């Protein structure tokens, strides 16, 4: 049997929100990339909520966009209702969210991928990962796909979402598959197990979809979009399409009674599912049990698109049996006569605890194998997209022999995400919150371009056009600042005057008409910079305090076992996580100040570096640390390759 072989630099498996960003990022950086999906018709699919953004998530989308990603452009083109959440709070809390035309979004993403130079999109079912082991070090060399074909590449990015060993539950009915109507990817699970990856299991759920035809919208409170919808992408000037409203309804005692009566039929309560789900996104049966004193729960009815009657019922994620789901909606105001077009279900799936990864999202044990998205135990399109972009960029950087790109916790929500995942792992599907970001006052949605675009341009993630927009904005801000400084209002310098709470930009334009020339986005940055300088300075103080530890690097092959007085729990944890800096080390749960002192002492003393040299070279890098191993390893010829592969399945 002769395999057909294809050669690429990078293979991305899975074309969801992580995979599409990963593939596009790698291709933007010049890597010859192939994106493999089991189904070309589900590229960029919104498996759950037809919405992008939200608190903290919206900030991530802005960051992805600032780095040249797809998500912001797609939602701007396909959004049907835009809202800036938390508007009454300060700018750090402003979070864009938009309902998407689900089909439109998918098509838009797919089209972006199809048009991306250097990127091939193919429908393939990956059956196995191909690796080779040279001198005790394992690296990925490609994948085998169904139908006797092999793709060879220097790096493989796994973004298989919930499709690993997935089981869907609706009541007692269980179906193998990661998403309604689709199968599962078994071969990859087998390969990961064979390669020694620790695998754990999560569950998540999705609510029913109703037909709008039977919903009595007139009886419900409408939630319109913003009058002045704000785009997600820094490339989008304005959103001009007509917006659709969502509607709000509530559960009630009758609904709760139905649920309580049928709890024994809920897989989560009958023992059929005993994996962990997200606490912050409980199923309706969870809400009724855990918050028994609440007599109602809010439900958002969200249209799934402009050309469909399907309505997503946000707030009643459930895995109760069909008849119970029917009965629930018969008791909800406005939905009494609505047809369930798709029933809600819970899905259990495998994920690889992300503590097995370097911050670059490359595996510590298999060189060149990157993981992004839900396979890392996260949830959410935005979290997936952020990881995908980072994995794609780092796979490309590795090809070049460059250091990985890992934004810091003080630079991006994406940085917080990466650090949390690889340092602390996660006990439940990981979702971003602003409270996870200790420097959130700096990580605003409005300044994502100022934080990341220049860096993205340097890496090749960002094109010249986007970069020019940033430099133009920065120049306009500079002009505005100098005009403000020259302006005098009540004998006070303009920039000082602007600090007063009651003074806004329009007031300043009144005093200095030239300022009217400044474009709104640049003006907003100037205003925020001036008004919030005090808070920003205080956060900067805290950042500087941490930077001192972040600057203390720990070699990848550091031998914790050699620190005799170190507690064995600390030794185990540190040896597993292999933190790159003391700052990262101190965030590992259960690591005490005393442990850090010991490690620091040994770092200073130059001891404890005698351990196995082979183990940790690959990927043991962070921003600022040079990666040198990639160039040498890849010279192994295919003939020498000891391909570890299962027999093709029946």
């Amino acid at each position, binding site marked *: 049997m002769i395999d057909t072989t294809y050669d690429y630099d990078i293979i991305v498996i899975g074309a969801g929100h992580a995979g599409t960003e990963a593939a596009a990022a790698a291709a933007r950086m010049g890597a010859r990339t192939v994106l493999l999906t089991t189904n070309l018709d589900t590229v960029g699919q919104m498996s759950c909520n037809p919405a992008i953004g*939200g*608190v*903290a998530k919206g900030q991530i989308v802005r960051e992805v966009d600032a780095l040249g990603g797809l998500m912001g452009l797609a939602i701007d083109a396909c959004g049907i209702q835009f809202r800036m*959440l*938390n508007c009454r*709070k*300060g700018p*750090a*809390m402003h*979070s864009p969210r938009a309902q998407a035309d689900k089909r439109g979004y998918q098509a838009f993403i797919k089209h972006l991928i199809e048009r991306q130079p250097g990127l091939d999109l193919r429908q393939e079912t990956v059956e196995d990962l191909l690796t080779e082991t040279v001198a005790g070090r394992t690296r990925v060399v490609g994948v085998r796909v169904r139908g006797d074909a092999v793709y060879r590449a220097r790096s493989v990015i796994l973004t298989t979402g919930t499709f690993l060993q997935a089981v869907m539950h609706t009541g007692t009915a269980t179906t193998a598959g990661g998403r309604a109507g689709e199968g599962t990817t078994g071969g990859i699970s087998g390969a990961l197990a064979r390669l020694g990856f620790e695998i754990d299991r999560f569950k998540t759920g999705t609510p029913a979809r109703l037909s709008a035809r039977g919903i009595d919208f007139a009886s419900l409170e409408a939630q319109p979009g913003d009058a002045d919808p704000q785009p997600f992408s820094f490339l989008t000037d304005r959103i001009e399409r007509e917006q659709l409203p969502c509607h709000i309804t509530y559960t009630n005692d009758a609904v709760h009674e139905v649920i309580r009566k049928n709890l024994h039929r809920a897989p989560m309560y009958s023992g059929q599912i005993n994996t962990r789900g997200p606490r*912050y996104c409980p199923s309706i049966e969870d809400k009724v049990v855990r918050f028994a004193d609440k007599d109602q729960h*809010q439900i*958002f009815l969200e249209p799934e698109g402009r050309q469909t009657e399907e309505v997503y019922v946000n707030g009643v994620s459930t895995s109760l049996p069909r008849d119970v789901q029917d009965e629930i909606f018969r008791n909800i105001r406005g939905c009494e006569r609505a047809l369930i077009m798709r029933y809600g279900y819970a899905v259990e799936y495998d994920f690889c605890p992300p503590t097995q990864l370097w911050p670059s999202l490359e595996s510590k044990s298999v060189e060149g194998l990157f993981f992004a998205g839900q396979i890392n135990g996260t949830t959410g399109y935005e979290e997936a997209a952020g990881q995908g972009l980072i994995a794609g960029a780092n796979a490309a950087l590795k090809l070049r022999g460059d250091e990985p790109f890992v934004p810091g916790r003080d630079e991006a929500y994406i940085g917080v995400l990466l650090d949390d995942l690889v340092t602390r792992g996660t006990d439940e599907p990981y979702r971003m*919150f*602003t*409270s996870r970001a*200790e420097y*959130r*006052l700096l990580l605003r949605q409005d300044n994502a371009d100022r934080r990341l675009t220049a860096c993205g341009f340097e890496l090749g993630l960002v094109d010249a056009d986007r970069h020019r927009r940033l430099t133009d904005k920065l120049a306009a801000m500079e002009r505005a600042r100098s005009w403000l400084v020259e302006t005098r209002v009540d004998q006070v310098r303009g920039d000082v005057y602007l600090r007063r709470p009651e003074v806004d930009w329009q007031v300043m334009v009144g005093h200095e008409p030239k300022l009217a020339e400044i474009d709104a986005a640049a003006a907003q940055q100037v205003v925020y910079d001036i008004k919030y300088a005090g*808070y920003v300075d*205080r*956060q900067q103080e*805290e950042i500087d*305090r941490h930077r*001192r*530890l972040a600057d203390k690097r720990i070699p990848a092959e550091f031998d914790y076992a050699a620190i*005799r*007085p170190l*507690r064995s729990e600390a030794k185990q944890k540190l040896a597993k996580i292999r933190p790159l800096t*003391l700052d990262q080390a*101190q965030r590992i749960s259960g690591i*005490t*100040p*005393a442990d*850090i*002192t*010991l490690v*620091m*002492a*040994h770092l*200073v*003393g130059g*001891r404890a570096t005698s351990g196995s040299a082979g183990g940790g070279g690959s990927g043991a890098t962070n921003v600022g640390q040079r990666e040198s191993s990639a160039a040498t390893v890849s010279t192994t010829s295919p003939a020498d390759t000891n391909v570890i592969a299962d027999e093709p399945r029946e």
Partner: protein
Amino acid sequence: MISAAADTRTTIVAIASSSAPALRGIVRIAGEDAVGVLAAMASGFVASASTRPYRVDVSLELGAPLGKLAAAALVWPTSRSYTGSPSVELHTFGSPPLLEAIVAAAVRAGARPAGPGEFTMRAFLAGRIDLTQAEAVLGVIDAADRDQLDAALDQLAGNVSRPLRSVRDRLLDLLADIEAGLDFVDEDIRFIEDESVLSELSGAAEVIGEAKAQLTGRHRAIATVDIILRGLPNVGKSSLLNALAGETVAIVSDEAGTTRDVVWHELEIEGRPVRLIDTAGQETPRDAIMRESQRVARDSQRTAAITLVCVDADVAVGVDPRELLRGNGPDETADETSRDRCEDTSGVGTRCDGTGWLAVATRCDLVERPDELAAAGWIVTSGREGQGLEALRQAIAGELDRQFGLPERGVSATAARCGDSIVRAERAIGAAIDAVSTEAGHEWVAGEIRVALAAIGEETGEIYTDDILDRVFSRFCIGK
């Protein structure tokens, strides 16, 4: 200190009791071979097979001329000890030379003299104590008086960090409520009202304020040093004391020899607590009472950090102040002052025991040319006119700085750190309250609470920063 942290296995030894003469003395040995070191020092000692701590009487071989010395040994044979490694405490008489001989014997037996704070650092690294407790260990040992001792013991028992811990807990709860309100804006739940935020913050501010008062109060609890005034009777020592103290303490009269007992006054000089001791004038004892009075005076002098040698200005004219200390005085203290060496001509000198003296010309309001005295190296003063007092204070402060370094020792190490972290916490809580009051938004409130938590965490040892550790451990005395 870093290198000491790197090495927590080597067996170390140090005197663990106060450096002053005392009834009991303790030498502590800790490290993997602590028991082996004891076996090498103590003839006939056989280590117990027990893994539990035990007590055994030993006979220590100190070598000639001391020979054998009986001591009680407390042995912790496993790592379940204060320092997290096998440890031995040797309890014996509190004679400093004897204790030093024991340390020397332990070093001969393979132990290494401990560095400053090394025992405490090991205890900290072994997770036996938190940071405030680590500092308190030193405070207990160094406590100069009952108040300081109580404060240090209190701190050791966790009574300072405990309320801070509980406030930290409450702030964490509060923060969680606020954060929930920020992150879950789409829920129809009001997580916390401004009113509750304010009352929680005020409660926290109160506890932090109390902790600050407690700890900064202790900042002043620097060991008080003695300064003694010496000189012939009726030379004006008492007037000088009164002038420095700003109130009448000593009985002042024109009759020579009024001061018949040690009279002292505690005051601060440049932020340092000192005990200014007036003595009976130096003269040949006329009777038993005088003799006794002067004996007490001389005892005071032995413990004084600075001796102010007071000479009447009109006598001082033409006299080299150093002469006075060479034993030319008209009294029997020559044997003592003859040990003094003058190291410069500025009227400030160092004695061979490291204490200092200042040559002070008193009652210079009674002489014509006080500037000549100053040129000769005298510190020219007048208790009555208040002249030269500032110069004297400066000279005393300078000498204290020379002897003790900057005024941060003992329990005050905590205070110095708190000066930073507690003040930061207090400021952050204040800013949080402002943010609530001005409706600045809960994200600012949360930001300030985070700063406060980080600061409190530094104090209670729950958050790590390297500079704190460096500072704490560099201030520890040997063997504590």
